[in-house]
């Protein structure tokens, strides 16, 4: 296959990574309007969980629980006092992310650690290695799980109700506090799962989260807040754009091009790809 054609699956696999890291954010940012800068550190927590367990598969549910619990604690201890003040949560969670990074440095040391990739993931199909396919599969599974949760479970439907109209949901008897808690748990847990997957392709160290956080936010912004299909399309689009932009230029320029594209896109669709209509003023 030509190098050019190769970039298509590569772009999709980059998109899968973006989707995986952004999936949790579509929950916490999208639903609750919480800009969680510590999202990257939840990803890091997932990666370190994989490091501690030394095995990828059991690490997936474990990381979900670990990162989810961290998210739960953060939400209960701090974020719930900040609803309606998204910019304050941004700064608050940035402080949290600093502390978590330093904590990781003190617990695990500053140098990167190694998570052995399972033997069954070596090899590949065409240009795509099994580990990339694994990540794509995980992203698809994540999307399906989230979709099923949102549309097929009672809790999920309540979550959606809160996304669409918090006040109305509250007055119709939904305990928004519990929904928020659960949402944060799931969103953070998904970050943990992403962290496990990332051990296959990237470094595992205290700075892990900082490498992915900006990209994750771009995906959510381009996709539209709280929009699952938006996140999927945005991740795929940005992944492909990144892949081809880097192919034709270089990695530095590709990053700039992706950003410019997001800004340009927001000129056309200021609320992202999909948007919830609302009559509320400001």
């Amino acid at each position, binding site marked *: 296959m030509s190098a050019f054609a190769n970039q298509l699956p590569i772009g999709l696999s980059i998109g899968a990574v973006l989707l995986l890291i952004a999936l949790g954010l579509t929950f916490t940012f999208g639903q609750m309007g919480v800009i969680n800068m510590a999202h990257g550190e939840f990803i890091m927590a997932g990666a370190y969980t994989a490091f501690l367990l030394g095995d990828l598969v059991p690490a997936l549910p474990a990381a979900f629980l670990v990162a989810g619990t961290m998210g739960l604690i953060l939400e209960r201890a701090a974020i719930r006092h900040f609803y309606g003040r998204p910019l304050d949560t941004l700064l608050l969670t940035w402080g949290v992310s600093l502390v978590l990074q330093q904590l990781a440095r003190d617990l695990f040391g500053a140098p990167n650690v190694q998570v052995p990739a399972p033997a069954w993931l070596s090899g590949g199909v065409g240009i795509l290695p099994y580990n990339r396919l694994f990540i794509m599969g995980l992203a698809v599974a994540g999307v399906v799980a989230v979709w099923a949760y949102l549309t097929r479970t009672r809790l999920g439907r309540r979550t959606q109700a809160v996304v669409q109209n918090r006040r109305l949901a509250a007055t119709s008897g939904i305990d928004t506090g519990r929904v928020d808690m659960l949402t944060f748990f799931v969103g953070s847990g998904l970050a943990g799962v992403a962290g496990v997957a990332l051990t296959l392709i990237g470094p595992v160290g205290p700075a892990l989260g900082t490498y992915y956080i900006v990209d994750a936010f771009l995906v959510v912004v381009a996709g539209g807040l709280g929009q699952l299909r938006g996140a999927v399309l945005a991740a795929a689009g940005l992944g492909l754009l990144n892949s081809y932009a880097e192919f034709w230029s270089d990695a530095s320029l590709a990053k700039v091009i992706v950003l410019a594209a997001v800004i340009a896109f927001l000129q056309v669709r200021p609320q992202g790809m999909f948007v919830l*209509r609302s*009559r509320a*003023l*400001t």
Partner: protein
Amino acid sequence: MLELRDVQVVFDGFRALDGVNLTVPDGELRFLIGPNGAGKTTLIDVITGLTRPVAGSVRFAGHDLVGRKEHQIVRLGVGRTFQTSVVFEELTVIENLDLAAGFRRPLWTLARRRRGVSEAVAEALARTGLEDLAERSAGVLSHGQRQWLEIGMLLAQRPRLLLLDEPVAGMSKDERERTGELLTRIADDHTVVVVEHDMEFLRRHASTVTVLHEGRVLVEGSVDQVSADPRVQEVYLGRKASDAVGHRP
């Protein structure tokens, strides 16, 4: 003065306005009523540029309003209030009014500190009876006072057309009384469109009423004509119109 022709608004496939025609002549006090979801607020949103119609025209004093931005429409002399009043809580009453009166001032005067009280602000203060509260911050006002402040801000803009969205909702009887008087006085020298549910308020103050239903104009006429109309009664679930619209759910 204000003329809507065949205005249509669609939200995600739902026809919020389905070909509304409405003419409000100069100097009139017009009431808009209708059950929930009839499209009353949407109609005001269309006039003020908050919502863009998919078809139809909105003309005001010779200007086509469709496609203009909100602040441009305000500058043409169309002002509005909102269902839930929005005043700036961190500013004082007088600062709120001054801000509303300000858009006609030359830009560079913005950089100066406010000194004294301009004529428009003083007039708005007097009309709304908020003189005593002038230096208080808007955040401490009661619900009724906020509504008056909002109407005052509207007056300070010196608009030619006022659009009031449920100005007496949630007010006590006394407050409603005062608002009604205020409204009557305003209507003396302005064109006013009021969205309102309160039938008693309607009877006392309305001259002409337009009934909206499912995005269309159902009936138009005097209060008595309208409440006697069988279609209106039917719309309000077969009950007498006066009962149905007398209380908000």
